[in-house]
């Protein structure tokens, strides 16, 4: 239905990988997506299955069990996961894609060897913990403190909206080790069973299958060797991590938009009103074309971005705009699909209903739309 991937970007290997991911999603996720959403979680065994299929290691170094890959593999993975229309499952299953990069970039060999291989094998779960109840996107203001005490840091504070926050084994936690502002921020790898570290569940509008939590640190002692990178040097790590996350979010939003299109087309073909199938109505056909047009433009923008990243460019503004663009496309397509499905689109258990509730997390998480516009404006010199 949609155009095929552009051969200038996508090789046969990419295509084969896409088929692998799609098969995984269709066999292991889609049949359970509604049930897991209502249940508020998915079986932990899914991590090992994903690892066995080769999905968790994509883009990570071989020495830790990963498979180095260009950006298009990451795009494909995120897009196909997004097509599942179970953003909650995808977000928790892939939370290591935001939890591990700071370690890869800044962690000591010893620390990384302890943390990364288990995660990529699907045995351990990794999470990233930056956002705080009082600070939102404003990293420079974060208030969780880590005070050096002998060979450990003593951590106090809270983290908010943490994906995989309930079940993760390793948390990359942004803490304040120094003075105010960005220069006082460090990252610590914290294990789940650290005394004084507790978690409480958050109920969300969507992503029900994802275990999102508020984290509480009460005099937690963390070995100083768990410091990721040098003290006070975490801000650039976190910012770079955000850029990677935004690319992933953009691709998965694009995938979710495609899922909406597929379901809307299928329904419009089947459903009859006023004596003819919905798809025979001109405004429905035009709406479907509007969906395709937006998806195609978003896909082209993301492909462009990935090829630039592969070429070594650092297009921060473009990344921010691509995430905004993709989230808007997802929003448009989710709204259109629910409208085309009508009452059925409002019923739980239906993929587009789930996606509709997942739109706003895409427009808020990883940097809210307005924050990203501010960022892009600065980057573009406005």
């Amino acid at each position, binding site marked *: 239905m949609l155009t095929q991937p552009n051969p200038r970007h996508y090789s046969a290997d990419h295509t084969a990988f896409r088929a692998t991911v799609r098969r995984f999603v269709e066999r292991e996720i889609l049949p359970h997506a509604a049930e897991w959403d209502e249940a508020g979680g998915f079986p932990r065994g899914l991590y090992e299955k994903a690892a066995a299929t080769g999905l968790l290691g994509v883009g990570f170094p071989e020495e830790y069990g990963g498979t180095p890959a260009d950006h298009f593999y990451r795009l494909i993975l995120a897009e196909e996961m997004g097509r599942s229309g179970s953003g909650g499952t995808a977000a928790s299953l892939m939370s290591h894609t935001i939890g591990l990069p700071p370690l890869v970039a800044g962690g000591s060999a010893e620390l990384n060897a302890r943390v990364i291989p288990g995660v990529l094998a699907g045995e351990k779960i990794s999470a990233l913990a930056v956002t705080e109840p009082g600070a939102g*996107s404003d990293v420079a203001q974060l208030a969780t403190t880590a005070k050096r005490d002998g060979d450990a840091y003593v951590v106090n504070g809270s983290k908010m909206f943490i994906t995989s926050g309930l079940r993760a084994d390793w948390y990359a936690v942004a803490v304040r080790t120094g003075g105010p502002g960005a220069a006082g921020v460090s990252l610590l790898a914290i294990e789940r069973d650290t005394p004084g570290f507790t978690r409480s569940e958050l109920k969300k509008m969507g992503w029900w299958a994802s275990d999102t939590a508020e984290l509480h640190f009460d005099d937690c002692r963390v070995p100083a060797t768990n410091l990721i990178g040098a003290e006070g040097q975490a801000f650039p790590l976190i910012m770079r991590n955000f850029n990677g996350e935004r690319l992933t979010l953009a691709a998965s939003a694009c995938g979710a938009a495609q899922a909406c299109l597929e379901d809307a087309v299928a329904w419009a073909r089947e459903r009859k009103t006023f004596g003819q199938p919905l798809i025979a109505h001109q405004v429905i056909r035009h709406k479907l074309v509007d969906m395709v047009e937006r998806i195609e433009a978003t896909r082209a923008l993301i492909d462009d971005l990935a090829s630039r990243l592969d070429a070594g460019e650092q297009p921060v503004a473009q990344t921010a705009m691509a995430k905004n663009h993709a989230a808007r496309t997802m929003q448009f397509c989710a709204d259109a699909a629910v409208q085309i499905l009508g009452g059925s689109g409002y019923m739980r258990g239906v993929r587009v209903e789930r996606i509709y*509730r997942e739109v706003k997390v895409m427009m*808020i998480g990883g940097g809210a739309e307005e924050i990203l516009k501010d960022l892009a404006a600065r980057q573009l010199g406005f």
Partner: protein
Amino acid sequence: MLYTQEHQELQRSVKKFIETEINPHVDEWEDAEIFPAHALFKKMGDAGFLGINKPQAYGGMGLDYSFQLAFVEALGDVRCGGVPMAIGVQTDMATPALARFGSDELRREFLVPTIAGDRVCSIGVSEPGAGSDVASIKTFARKDGDDYVITGTKMWITSGTQSDWICLLANTSEGAAHKNKTLICVPMKSKGVSVAKKLKKLGMWSSDTAQLYFDEVRVPQRYRIGEEGMGFTYQMQQFQEERLFAAAQWTALDRILRETIAYTKERQAFGQSILDNQYVHFRLAELKTEIEALRALVHDAATKLVAGEDVTMLASMAKLKVGRLGREVADGCLQFWGGMGYVWESNVSRLFRDIRLSSIGGGADEVMLGIIAKYMGTLPRKA
């Protein structure tokens, strides 16, 4: 429409009722995916809220529609969409035709207890195969002696698991789709009525929605509202109130806007309140502008309804606009709450889920556009 002191007093008492009798329980009802309609409606009936513009002879207040609108607008204070929707079914969707065209006997039997809050009612128009396409419903009521014997399925029935009677639209003859339909009051305890399933929805959790199954359900013909074959016409007329009810929920949008202003004023980020960001207060001003336009449109339609005009086109326009604007306001406001808006319990997240129904239920946007086009004289004949 300029509200008088009487309108304002009515709104004050409704709002006070909401604060004491509804809002403290909303979270619990939302979790339960149902609210206790009988208990709540009895209290509302006692307060006189369920028959504001219904005839005094049947327990109503006998006021004009402007007072009913004032009441409906006050419902915007309820911290969810489900409870107001069920109230609206009771007052503006299932009972206007009965009040207008029902026989004296029928009104005593069904309208009086409904206004008193002793009975909960539903409206039965939509079917699995005919959501917005009212003319093509399949439920049939055949005559047998003095009775109707009704068979069919009704879909998306608000309060359907707990109502006492339903204002049912059924075909009573073959022939032209606009002239073969009849509205009938059907007690839900009648033999053969069953709840096929309670539906799980994106939003409107506090309101129970059901699919109903009618299998050879026998009711006396005197339960018919008005004349046989006039059901389609009555229902079209009754839709005016239904659509104005939906549009009057602009007050819920306005409430969320106010809550958003309060939140963004308090919340700090990057060294200033979120509200101090120009895009935030500008965007809120844009949304407020559209809310005011919708309010003015609703009041204009209500003024003309009171003056006796046919406001089908204006009411359909207002219904279309509340659905689209509702999504925009919910989305725009939630965005400014950030993660706090995305958590399940937040009012703005609830509005986001609830309001999505407005463009689907009670005639989808596309149906409204068809009606407006028809009144504009631009609809092709065969479409």
